[in-house]
């Protein structure tokens, strides 16, 4: 008859009270785990989005992130092809890589001069095949069906624009964008387009435009590497919602060579970033360390630096931070409830069993033995509550995940299946279980101490 068995039997003795206490703990554990699973899911969902679009890491020109965005002329990576070769062939990095691809971001003005409208835009020049491969990353097994980029298989002068850009440039009609109210303001006609820009645009168009094509065209005006204006005429193949309105109102996606020609003309093309996608997010520290080492030695000729997706997307940290704060709040609240529930249960048990405590002490159990007995009861309550909580959470999570619920995460344009991740989240499960047990032990500690301190004679006289 060890302390454990004795404690268990004592819990079973007053099973109604033990069950009530267990129920409170189970509900507590379930709330923590389900919310934790939900928050985890959001975290992974955001992460997957970022990693699919811009990789885990980006190599950029030093200070580009802080000062250089939209200024490819001053902050381009000159030797980017060499850098990519080095990264891809590095024996340490190679096994971790899925995609390494250059990107050129540029700020400019997009104009539909035929309609006399223009707006500032951010152009993003990409290699379509690489981007499509990046979209396949799904390390967290989301039930996603990767869509190919709309630029896939299009002519070199094609572009995809955000629906916000389409709206302002009055291209909703030809691009068949739904929910696109037209501005009531009268605008100047295309005939008024500045002649010098029209001329620039015409020069460009001569090279590769197919005269029979009916797709609408826009002009993308940007500063070239020498600060002079340059224009590309782009064939808009599609308007696509970009989720976040600010981005949707700016986005122009185009093929990398086209973007490079716009900025660098006939000179050596550059990129503003090299996106690196890894097999697993957990490889970021190792990959970063290796990249830093390479940038300090082999690739020393250019001042480059490495950023991870969390740094590049500050909203990631803000959203996950907010969820962590809510999670912490819930955990503390539930910890307090468990503390008082178990404490109350154990206090009642001590009072009820006063004579028993006196008897045990009389026949030779030490004070420590009494304390251990009640603390063990608290621990057992905690352990059983934790196990029940985990099992119920797993069952509920299964039901939710197979219930066909959907939601639209922040920054997404399409709803995604609502899932809560409890299964497999070992640190969270173990942390919650241990936390619950620790709280149960702490709350059993005071009643146990009181029990141990009882005077034997007084305890035996108790009625």
């Amino acid at each position, binding site marked *: 008859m060890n302390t454990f068995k004795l404690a268990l039997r004592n819990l079973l003795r007053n099973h109604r009270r033990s069950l009530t206490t267990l129920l409170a703990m189970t509900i507590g554990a379930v709330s923590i785990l389900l919310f934790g699973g939900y928050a985890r899911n959001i975290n992974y969902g955001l992460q997957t989005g970022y990693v699919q679009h811009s990789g885990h890491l980006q190599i950029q020109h030093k200070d580009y992130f802080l000062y250089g965005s939209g200024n490819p002329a001053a902050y381009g990576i000159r030797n980017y092809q060499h850098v990519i070769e080095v990264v891809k062939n590095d024996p340490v990095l190679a096994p971790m890589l899925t995609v390494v691809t250059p990107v050129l971001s540029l700020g400019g003005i997009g104009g539909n001069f035929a309609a006399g409208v223009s707006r500032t835009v951010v152009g993003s020049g990409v290699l379509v095949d690489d981007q499509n491969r990046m979209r396949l990353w799904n390390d967290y097994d989301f039930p996603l069906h990767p869509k190919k980029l709309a630029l896939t298989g299009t002519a070199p002068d094609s572009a995809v624009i955000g629906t916000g850009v389409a709206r302002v440039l009055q291209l909703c009609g030809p691009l068949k964008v739904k929910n696109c109210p037209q501005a009531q303001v009268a605008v100047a006609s295309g005939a008024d387009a500045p002649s010098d820009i029209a001329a620039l645009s015409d020069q460009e168009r001569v090279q590769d435009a197919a005269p029979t094509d009916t797709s609408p065209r826009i002009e993308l005006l940007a500063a070239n590497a020498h600060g002079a204006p340059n224009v590309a005429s782009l064939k808009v193949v599609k308007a696509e919602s970009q989720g976040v309105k600010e981005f949707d109102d700016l986005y122009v996606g185009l093929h990398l060579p086209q973007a490079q020609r716009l900025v660098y003309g006939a000179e050596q093309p550059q990129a503003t970033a090299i996106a690196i996608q890894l097999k697993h997010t957990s490889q970021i520290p190792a990959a970063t360390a290796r990249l830093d080492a390479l940038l300090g030695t082999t690739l020393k000729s250019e001042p480059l630096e490495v950023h991870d997706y969390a740094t590049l997307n500050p909203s990631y940290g803000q959203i996950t931070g907010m969820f962590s704060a809510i999670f912490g709040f819930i955990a503390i609240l539930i910890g307090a409830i468990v503390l008082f529930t178990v404490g109350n249960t154990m206090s009642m048990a001590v009072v009820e069993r006063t004579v028993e405590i006196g008897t045990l002490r*009389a026949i030779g159990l030490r004070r420590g033995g009494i304390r251990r007995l009640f603390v063990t009861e608290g621990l057992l309550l905690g352990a059983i509550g934790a196990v029940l909580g985990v099992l119920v959470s797993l069952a509920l999570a299964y039901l939710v995940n197979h219930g066909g619920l959907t939601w639209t995460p922040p920054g997404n344009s399409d709803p995604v299946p609502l899932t809560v991740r409890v299964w497999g989240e070992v640190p969270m499960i173990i942390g919650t279980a241990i936390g619950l047990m620790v709280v149960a032990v702490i709350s059993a500690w005071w009643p146990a101490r009181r029990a141990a301190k009882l005077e034997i004679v007084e305890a*035996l006289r108790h009625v």
Partner: protein
Amino acid sequence: MNPVILNKVAKHYRLDSVDVPALADINLEIHPQRFTVLSGPSGSGKTTLLNLIGCVDRPDSGEIIVAGEPVLALKDDALSDFRARRIGFIFQNFNLLPVLSAYENVEYPLLLNKTPPKQRRERVLSLLDAVGLADRARNRPGQLSGGQRQRVAIARALATEPTLVLADEPTANLDSHTGDAIIQLMRKMQRELKVTFVFSSHDPQVLAEADDVVSIRDGRITEIRRQEDVQ
């Protein structure tokens, strides 16, 4: 050597700033392997005296030596261990652990004593057999009658082969017939195991069985009648 020696022992309780003298100037030696009864009217101090002998309470003054050990010098843990080894208790209300079976109740002091498993088992079974409850070993106290519970308690008190067994009115909660049987059982066990038994009672039946009788009144010993003196 006498298993219990009390020298000038005194004890009083404080009740709302009024001193209630419970015991005064107690000088008493309990002789070994005897059946000693503390006798006296209600409130005379029998329970208080037994508690002091049993090392579960401390006097205000005086000296107490149990089994050769000046127990007042012992710290709480040492005293607990001492009780576990040397003293068996039988209570008026039986005080068995309700969640343990008869077998486990008898076994409990042996576990405190760290008796090896094989020895433990033999001891428990032979004691249950001796108190006539071999067939109720698996029953919990709730499934036993008062007399049966007190038999389990007797077996538990004797489990560690203590020097001393103390019983505070062990028959007060039993009908007279069952009480008699319990007294006879204790007498038998005391003789067989050569243990020193001390208990309190005002039951004439019990007094008749006693070797030595210690009479108490108002917290003082008024008479000690020993077997030799009777003869």
